[in-house]
């Protein structure tokens, strides 16, 4: 998937060896998705098997250099012009947790939501600190914004869940007055 296409796209700019590909990938994405060099070489081997890259000898230090083939270039062009599919949503731990929190008795849903909101905003504060370190590399700043938008969406969804849960609680039939309430009534 994306690592394969990312490496092909990087090779479009000229032949490179594994370490170079890794560091260029990480520079553009701010090390958000660290790659190990083993992964890079495994991917290159598969790309070579599929005829999308080919060996281009080795440099003075003995690094094995790869270059993209014509078939590889076509593959990259197709990748860029095809939208990323929204397939089966990945299993979302938070959505599952909330779905269970509202159905399992005894869970304080408000606290679950607030703790998550706090944690997500702390992550957002961290991303924002990175944004303030100007000048930001364009490629990396776009990746960073993607993290910001995702975290922001999560907080908005949590706000929505909270409002819904509160409304549902307000509409639920009033519980029987508790003992302590009765006591207060009689002392008045």
């Amino acid at each position, binding site marked *: 998937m994306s690592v394969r296409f990312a490496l092909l796209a990087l090779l479009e700019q000229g032949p490179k060896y594994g370490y170079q590909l890794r560091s260029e990938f990480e520079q553009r994405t701010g090390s958000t998705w660290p790659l190990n060099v083993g992964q890079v070489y495994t991917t290159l081997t598969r790309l070579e098997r599929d005829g999308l890259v080919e060996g281009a000898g080795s440099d003075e230090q003995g690094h094995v250099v790869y270059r993209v083939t014509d078939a590889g270039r076509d593959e990259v062009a197709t990748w860029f012009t095809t939208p990323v599919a929204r397939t089966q949503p990945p299993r979302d731990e938070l959505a599952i947790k909330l779905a269970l929190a509202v159905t399992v008795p005894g869970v304080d849903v408000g606290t679950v939501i607030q703790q998550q909101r*706090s944690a997500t905003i702390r992550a957002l504060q*961290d991303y924002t600190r990175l944004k303030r370190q100007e000048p930001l590399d364009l490629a990396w700043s776009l990746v960073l914004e993607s993290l910001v938008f995702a975290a922001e969406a999560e907080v908005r969804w949590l706000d929505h869940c909270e409002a819904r849960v509160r409304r549902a609680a307000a509409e639920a039939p009033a519980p029987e007055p508790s003992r302590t309430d009765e006591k207060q009534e009689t002392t008045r």
Partner: protein
Amino acid sequence: MSAPVLELDAVSRQHGEGATLVQALRTVSLRVTAGELVAVMGPSGSGKSTLLTLAGGLDAPTAGVVRVEGTDLAGLGPAGRARMRRTSIGYVFQDFNLIPALTAAENVALPLELDGVRTSAARAAARTALEEVGIADLADRFPDHMSGGQQQRVAIARAVVGDRRLVLADEPTGALDTETGEDVLRLLRGRCDAGAAGVLVTHEARHAAWADRVVFLRDGVVVDETTSDPVESLVETGA
């Protein structure tokens, strides 16, 4: 640690009484020091604006103490509070609140002139403030001939002119698009980095994230607060 610029000590504000009693804020305590930007988040009706108007001396608490630069606002009297608002406290609103008949520079100079600063000195300070928010070239424009983002820059210049140390902003990005809103946050952040204390009311997480601390209000009560210590970095910077 430096003395707080703003201090709310067990502050409450209630409206009405008996059956119509509303507890807009209940025993809220908050300290904001110089250089610090604190965001206040919470659903509509949770008491965010109430907190800010109390902090800015626009309203008085029914219990508790509000201190700005160490001075109890209740002890000042109306004239003293008005003076404090012109010299120490800057307010930024969602709808900018500029005076349409005045140019950008005149709007910014107004609080200084009301405070007795000579017109020429006030205009010079206004120009410096407009420069700081990046719109010195719009000094002679009227609000009607500016975009929302530009008007909000003027409002920020007006809130900080004359080196006011406390900047209070109530949903200042509410009417702006994401990018323009971000510029406004950058300015507020810069002002706090330069030594002001700031309180920002917002319901947008991406804007709250510019603050050092985020305080969460529910039904007039502080229910949670993020700390100002940076968390362990989630991502590393690009090389």
